[in-house]
């Protein structure tokens, strides 16, 4: 086979039963009447995954991502169409699936590994590595029932990742676990990728796919609506999801933020900014009643929730006095140091003691940093390189 996975015109229909018709009496009663509705979770999916490719699958909740992965791993079977795979598969659809609470960590490692198709001998050789990766040296002989969910997750991932399959299929399992461990898992997946393995990867954190995927497809209601390089597909995803994601608002609205505009060098409203360019955050508000000494602020966060920058009128030593009616606050960022990535903008109006929130728009706006600079990292730091013979 030329490809690692070939999906041909795959559709999957689920029967949604009106009630759980599971006993003989009901089966007989409903024999003629159809007790279910058809629901098509996948429709006409055609997909070739190259050997050695890292493919990301993104899409809203319920768009069929997990269903597609389950079809690939033969947990469920498509209603029509065909799926062919070439090479051994390890699937991580749920961390620690099949862990037995009444067995110890050690016993579970062996059991879980054999579920993934691993022999005892193979595990023996990797046991210490697995335990070290999961950071469970001290607890490995305890019952899994006494593990915290974090420990559970670490052990599950460590076992699954230690299997050496040709195709690794991962569904959203990285959403759980602390950040440090997520990082560790991503590094491990990176390692996998570098060794030429095929990876199929579903994540909610779509920006992660930009980091590690060669190609991304986006599903919408069971169809592939985008297929291409990560950046473009992810951008499309954000456009579709724009307002839904993470954004929230709160406050008593005595001051209402009526409009927020992101303006570029030329004063045009845009969502694309370039490293080194300037940006104006223009916040228009309306005070419903006279408010004494309010504070206006904003912050820029990256997709990980890391705040790149934030400030407010109080920090800048400004006194707004009493505001009433319409007004504008403009934050003028002279030069944006960030390299490529997507940033979310939060804007807020609150009292000086921060006890009263008038209006807080959390991550409601976003923009894209673009750059033609080749350097890597979060920020651009002007850097000159000098070379010469070693001095001394």
């Amino acid at each position, binding site marked *: 086979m030329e490809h690692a996975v070939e999906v041909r015109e795959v559709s999957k229909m*689920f029967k949604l039963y009106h009630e759980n018709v599971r006993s003989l009496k009901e089966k007989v009663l409903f024999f003629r009447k159809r007790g279910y509705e058809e629901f098509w979770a996948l429709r006409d999916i055609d997909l070739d995954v190259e050997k050695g490719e890292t493919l990301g699958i993104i899409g809203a909740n319920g768009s069929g991502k997990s269903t597609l992965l*389950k079809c690939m791993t033969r*947990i*469920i*079977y498509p209603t029509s169409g065909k799926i062919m795979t070439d090479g051994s598969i390890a699937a991580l659809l749920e961390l620690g699936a099949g862990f037995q609470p*009444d067995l110890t960590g050690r016993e579970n490692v062996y059991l879980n590994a*054999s579920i*993934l198709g691993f022999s005892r001998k193979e595990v023996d050789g990797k046991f210490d590595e697995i335990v070290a990766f999961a950071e469970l040296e001290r607890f490995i002989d305890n019952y899994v029932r006494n593990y915290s969910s974090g420990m559970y997750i670490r052990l599950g991932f460590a076992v699954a990742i230690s299997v050496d399959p040709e195709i690794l299929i991962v569904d959203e399992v990285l959403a759980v676990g602390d950040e440090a461990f997520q990082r560790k898992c991503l590094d491990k997946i990176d390692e996998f990728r570098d060794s030429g393995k095929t990876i199929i990867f579903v994540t909610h954190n779509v920006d992660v796919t930009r980091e590690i995927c060669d190609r991304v497809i986006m599903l919408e209601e069971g169809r592939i609506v985008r297929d291409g390089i990560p950046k473009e597909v992810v951008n499309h995803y954000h456009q579709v999801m724009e307002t839904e994601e993470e954004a929230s608002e709160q406050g008593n609205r005595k001051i209402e933020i009526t409009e927020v505009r992101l303006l570029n060098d030329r004063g045009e409203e845009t969502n694309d900014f370039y490293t080194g360019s300037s940006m104006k955050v223009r916040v228009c508000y309306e005070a419903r009643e006279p408010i004494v000494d309010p504070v206006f602020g904003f912050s820029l966060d990256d997709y990980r929730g890391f705040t790149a920058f934030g400030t407010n009128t109080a920090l800048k030593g400004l006194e707004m006095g009493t505001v009433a009616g319409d007004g504008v606050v403009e934050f003028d960022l002279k030069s944006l140091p960030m390299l490529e990535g997507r940033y979310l903008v939060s804007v807020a109006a609150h009292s000086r003691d921060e006890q009263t929130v008038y209006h807080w728009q959390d991550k409601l706006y976003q923009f894209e940093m673009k750059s033609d600079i080749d350097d890597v990292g979060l920020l651009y730091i002007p850097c000159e390189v000098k070379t010469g013979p070693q001095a001394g």
Partner: protein
Amino acid sequence: MIERLKDLWAHRELLWNMTVKELKVKYKRSVLGFAWSFMTPLVMLLVFSIVFSILARGGDVQWYAVFLMSGLLPWLFFVNSLMQSVGSIVANPGLVKKVYFPREILPIAAVGANIFHFVLQMLVFFVFMLLIRWHFSPWLLLMPFILILQVVLTLGLALLVSAANVYLRDVQHFVEVALTALFWLSPIVYPVGLVASQFPKFMPLYLVNPMTNIVLLWEYAIYNPHHYGPQVAYISFWGILITVVFSIVTLVGGYYVFARIERGFAEQI
């Protein structure tokens, strides 16, 4: 079918681990542990010995304890295997919905764990017989064959009922009821001669039941018919032939049905 068997073979280590898991988990948090697996047969022995001695006015069957055990232990093996396997798939949604592996491993492991219990119980039983200086007959050598025959039948039924139970939870209850009835319809508590003498007309029908034949074989092999006469445990050529054919057909058919409907398991449970 060949593909399936290959896949099963490739997962033999998982099958082994699941079997061991069944055993470990079952007695993990109990003080007496494995001793419990001897409780049921012992209590039944006590009760039936008393009841039977009252009903039969203490005579007909000599060494009733040995007679009862030689049929009861295999029967309990049969019942426990089926009762555990019938729910084995619906009881493991976490596995079935989230990982791929040959699903037949679940019912097979349930039977496997019970083979272990059975062999253990038999060993204890044989130690007891050695202590009372039991006269073993050469028919004892038949035991491996009988065990294989019973395992074939049990596996076939286990595959069938565990798969059917995914779609129709009634199966679980049906199996329970059917097994209770079959227990009294098999010559375990009473000797087969009782049926032969009291209801001679029903004998052909009575002997159709494959478990009757298997129980008779066990009794024949262990209970030493030459001392106590064929009315206690008799075997017929036709009975054995029917049972062998029936068991093989059940295994092949059960596996076939299992393979046919196994694809829907993850969605159904």
